C-alpha cells in the first residue's frame, strides 16, 4: 500500500522528511500484524517476561508495565482474518471485533499473550471474556469492573479492584510489583499522554501539518510497542512536524465521534480527509487519552490511578458519568476546536454507540450543527458507498 503525502516537500528537507514519512508505513505494518511479531521479538529480548493484552477501551496499563510486562491493545483483525470458526460461538447482531478477536483466539494468534484483560464496556465484550476463559483455561483471563459511577465509594472500590489485578499480575509474573516501579510507570505513561495531547492540539490548530490518518498511525501504533519506544517516536514527530512543508487547504473542520472500540479501516479515515474534511477531534485513541491531565505522582500510586480514572478522565460511551453528560462533552469538543460538523462514525452492531447517537444527535441538532451518521465494519475493504455518502455531505456543506 502506498500512501500519498499531501504536497511535494521543499528541497532542503527532502531526505529527513522522506525518512520520517517512511515511518508511517512501518508503524502501520506493526499495527496490522496479526502474528504480533513485535511482541514476540520483545519477549525474546526479555526472556521470561510476559505480555498481557487488553480489549478496548481502557486498561490500567501502568499496572502491567510496572509488573515488567508488555501491555498490548487488542484491536480486532479487520479484514485480515476470515471468520471461519468464531461464527459458531458468536452469532448474528454482534459487532465484528468480538468475532475477529474470538477468531484470533481460535486460530492461535493470541499465543504471544500470557494474559487477557477485559472490562465492563458492553454486554458482548463481557461475554467474550468468559467464553475465551472457558476455551483457553491455561491463559490468565480477567474481567475488570470499571465503575459506572463517580462517587467517592467508586474510587475506593476501584482501588481495591486494582489491588486485585496487581495480585494476579504478581502471580503471573512471579514477582511483586514495587510501589516505586508503579510510580515510574505512571510517570512514563503521563509523558506519553501529554505528547499525545500535544499532537492532537497541533492537528487541531494546523491540520495541514498532520493528517488524521497519520496521527492515527503515530498514536495508535503505541498500543503495540513498549511505551519507552513510543515516547521517542512521538517526540521525534513533535520536533519534525511543525517544520513540515504543507499548504493549508480549504476543508471542513469535523469532529469524529463513536469509533472508540472497533476501529474503522485506515482507508476510511483517509477517505474522509480526501473528501474534504479536516479531522480536528476524534475518539479513535481513547486508551491513550483517557486522562485529562497527569495522574498525580504523589501519595499512593494505586489510589492516584483509581482516582484519576473516576475523576480525571474524558467522557466515553462505555461508561456512565453524569457529572458531565457525554453530549455536553461533545459540545465542548466542537466549541474548543471550532468544528463545523460532526461525523458519527459507528461500528455496525455497536450498542453503546447506537444508544449515544440518539442523545448526541439531539445535542448537535440543538447546536444547529450539521452531522453525518456513518456505519462501518472493521472488515470493510470496498468503500464506494461510504465515499458517496461523505462526498455528498461535504458538498452539501461547501455549496450551501
Amino acid at each position, binding site marked *: 500500500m502506498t500512501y500519498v503525502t499531501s504536497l511535494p516537500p521543499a528541497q532542503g528537507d527532502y531526505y529527513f522528511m522522506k525518512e520520517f514519512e517512511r515511518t508511517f508505513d512501518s508503524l502501520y505494518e506493526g499495527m496490522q500484524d496479526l502474528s504480533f511479531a513485535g511482541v514476540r521479538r520483545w519477549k525474546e529480548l526479555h526472556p521470561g517476561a510476559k505480555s498481557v493484552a487488553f480489549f478496548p477501551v481502557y486498561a490500567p496499563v501502568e499496572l502491567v508495565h510496572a509488573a515488567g510486562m508488555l501491555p498490548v491493545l487488542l484491536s480486532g483483525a479487520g479484514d485480515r482474518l*476470515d*471468520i*471461519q470458526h468464531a461464527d459458531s460461538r458468536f452469532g448474528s447482531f454482534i459487532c465484528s471485533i468480538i468475532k475477529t478477536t474470538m477468531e484470533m483466539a481460535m486460530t492461535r494468534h493470541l499465543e504471544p499473550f500470557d494474559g487477557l484483560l477485559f472490562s465492563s464496556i458492553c454486554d458482548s465484550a463481557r461475554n467474550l471474556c468468559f467464553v475465551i476463559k472457558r476455551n483457553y483455561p491455561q491463559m490468565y483471563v480477567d474481567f475488570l469492573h470499571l465503575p459506572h459511577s463517580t462517587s467517592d465509594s467508586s474510587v475506593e472500590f476501584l482501588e481495591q479492584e486494582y489491588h486485585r489485578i496487581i495480585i494476579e499480575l504478581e502471580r503471573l509474573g512471579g514477582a511483586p510489583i514495587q510501589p516505586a516501579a508503579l510510580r515510574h510507570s505512571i510517570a512514563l505513561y503521563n509523558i506519553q499522554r501529554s505528547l499525545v495531547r500535544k499532537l492532537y492540539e497541533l492537528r487541531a490548530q494546523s491540520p495541514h501539518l498532520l493528517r488524521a490518518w497519520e496521527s492515527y498511525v503515530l498514536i495508535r501504533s503505541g498500543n503495540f510497542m513498549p511505551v519507552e519506544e513510543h515516547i521517542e517516536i512521538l517526540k521525534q514527530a513533535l520536533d519534525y512536524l511543525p517544520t513540515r512543508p504543507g499548504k493549508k487547504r480549504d476543508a471542513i473542520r469535523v469532529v469524529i465521534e463513536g469509533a472508540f472500540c472497533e476501529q474503522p479501516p485506515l482507508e476510511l479515515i483517509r477517505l474522509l480527509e480526501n473528501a474534504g474534511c479536516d479531522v480536528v477531534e476524534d475518539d479513535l485513541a481513547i486508551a491513550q487519552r483517557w486522562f485529562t491531565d497527569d495522574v498525580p505522582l504523589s501519595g499512593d500510586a494505586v489510589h492516584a490511578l483509581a482516582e484519576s480514572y473516576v475523576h480525571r478522565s474524558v467522557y466515553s460511551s462505555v461508561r456512565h458519568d453524569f457529572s458531565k453528560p457525554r453530549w455536553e462533552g461533545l459540545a465542548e469538543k466542537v466549541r474548543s476546536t471550532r468544528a463545523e460538523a460532526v461525523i458519527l462514525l459507528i461500528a455496525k452492531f455497536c450498542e453503546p454507540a447506537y444508544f449515544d447517537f440518539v442523545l448526541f444527535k439531539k445535542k448537535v441538532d440543538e447546536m444547529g450543527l450539521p452531522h453525518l451518521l456513518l456505519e462501518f465494519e472493521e472488515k*470493510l475493504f470496498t468503500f*464506494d458507498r461510504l465515499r458517496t455518502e461523505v462526498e455528498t455531505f461535504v458538498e452539501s456543506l461547501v455549496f450551501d
Partner: protein
Amino acid sequence: MRIAAGVDVGSTQTKAVLIGANGDGVKVLSRSLIDTGANVRKAAEKAFDECCQAAGIAQADVGFVVGTGYGRYNISFGHTQMTEISCHARGAHFLCPGTRTVIDMGGQDAKAIGVGPSGEVLDFVMNDKCAAGTGRFLANAAEVMGIGLDDIGPLSLRATRPVKIATVCTVFVESDILSYLSQGKKPEDIMGGVHLAIAKRTMSLARRVNIEPLVTMTGGVARNIGMVRALETVLGQKIIVTPDAQFMGAVGAALFSLEKLGESFESSVWREHAVSSRD
C-alpha cells in the same frame, strides 16, 4: 411388495419418491421433480402422480405417505409429516452408508446435520433467515453474469485467482460482481470467488455440529461440481455426492413411510396428520 412414498415440498421445487420393499431388500422405484409454484397442494399432488406413473404403480397401492419440507402440512393425501432434517439424515444414511455428517444446500436454506450410526439426527444447525450460502445466492450471481446455472460450477473450477467477495448479502453481491467485471476480472475468477465465499460461509455454519466423516452433501446445489469442490477445499475432506442428492429429503421421507407400513395408525409415536390452519 410393500410400497411407500415420500413427498418433499420445498420452497422452489417439489420432489416425490417411491420405495419398494420385499424379500430382496429395499430399493427406490421412481422419482419425480417439479417446480412448486404458487399452489403447494397441487404441486404435491402432481409430483406424487408423476412419481406413481413413472413406476407404473396405482396411487391406491401406495401403503403410506410421509410429507416433508416447508409445505409438508399441505399434502392432502399424506398420512403424517417429518421435518426434512430427519429425512435428509435418514436418506443419506440409506443411500450413502457410513454418513456421519450431512451438508444440505437447498434453494433457500442451508443446514448441517450430525448423523448417528442408525441414521438418527444427533444435532443440527440451520441457516434459514438469510440466503447467503444457498442456491439463491448462486442463481443471482449466475444471472448477473449472464451464465446458465448449469455452467457456473464447471466455470468456477477454471479459476486461477478467485476474487474476494466482501458481502454476504445475495443482493449486494451483484454489485460486487459488476464491479469486478468492469475491472476486467475473468469470469472464472469471479465465479470461483463466489463459490469459495459460499463454501466458507457454509462450512462456518456447519462447524457448529461435530463434522465427522463420511460427509455427504444433499440438496439441489450438490449438482454443482464447483460447489462440491469448493466445500472440499475449505473442509479439507472428501465429500460424497449421489445422483439422488436432490431427492434426499423425499427418499428419507419414503423410508420413514416404509417403517410405518404395517404399524397401527394410532401408534403413539406418530402424530396424527394435522393440516395447518391460521389462528
